[in-house]
């Protein structure tokens, strides 16, 4: 009795390991949960991409639910995402703020002129230094901000119609109800 239990042990351990590794296969290690969720948006002071003379600060994010979308013309996945954002911005659900990350102003302006501009305003972060305060480590990344200026959700990777419908829209609507 005791001996059979002893022989069973390695099989049991193996079983547990297989279960863990199996689950690990379906986790995406590239997606890191942001510790900033539940915190106020970091302070920033950046030029507006299209109007360099008028600086943008975290103040613009207060008073309404909004999205902050980190992008750059160097980012391949942002191309696809741009079309999704254009379609979403036409629905006028929330203002979408752009965060042009580690980019060239002329290239960024040309990109928006060519592909359409879904953004209410675009903060131009040429060096990417300000983005460190947001815990940005790539593009695209999208933050959902509530009316008090608290980060409530972060999506890493390109937004697709499916992500907007299933991940973002329900959260946006819940936050908009919270505010009224």
């Amino acid at each position: 009795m005791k001996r059979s239990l002893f022989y069973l042990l390695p099989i049991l351990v193996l079983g547990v390991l297989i279960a863990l590794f199996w689950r690990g296969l379906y986790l995406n290690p590239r997606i890191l949960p942001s510790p900033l969720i539940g915190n106020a948006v970091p302070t920033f002071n950046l030029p507006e991409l299209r109007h360099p003379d008028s600086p943008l600060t975290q103040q613009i994010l207060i008073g309404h639910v909004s999205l902050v979308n980190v992008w750059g013309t160097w980012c391949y996945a942002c191309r696809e995402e741009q079309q999704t954002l254009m379609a979403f911005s036409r629905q006028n659900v929330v203002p979408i703020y752009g965060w042009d990350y580690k980019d060239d102003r002329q290239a960024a302006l040309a990109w928006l002129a060519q592909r359409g501009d879904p953004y209410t305003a675009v903060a131009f972060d040429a060096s990417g230094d300000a983005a460190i305060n947001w815990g940005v480590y790539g593009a695209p990344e999208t933050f959902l901000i509530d009316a008090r200026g608290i980060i409530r959700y972060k999506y890493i990777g390109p937004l697709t119609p499916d992500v907007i419908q299933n991940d973002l829209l329900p959260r946006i609507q819940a936050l908009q109800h919270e505010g009224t």
Partner: protein
Amino acid sequence: MRQLLWVTLATSVLFCLWLPSARAVDSEAPFSNPQLQQRYEGLIHDFRCLVCFDESIANSDADLAADFRHQVHQMVADGKSDQEIKTFMIKRYGDFILYQPPLQPSTWVLWGGPFVLLVIGLVTLIFILRRRARMHNVEGDNA
């Protein structure tokens, strides 16, 4: 045949010796104060580059690693302590930014697991050896 083995071995050793010099990616100006430079170099080995997970920001030539090095450099220059700099990065990127995960409840299995397995292995070994010894004795008695 034997000669070939020696050549292979020598090349591998040389290759390993040469490896460290391959990490000349840091473009930050060195501190004039050697103590600060030492702290800076220690710190950049502690942070993970988040686009190339298996490299520290000291070894990675990714853009993001350069930005992180710049940030650390700036904070060291501003007189921030090592702990302040680590807290700054963890607050923004989470524990994963540290190359060495901190010891805390969520990482107990990670840190303790290998030792638990070692103990299980040792206990098994002792158990088997003892039983074998006993079986030998029994055989000896029969003879």
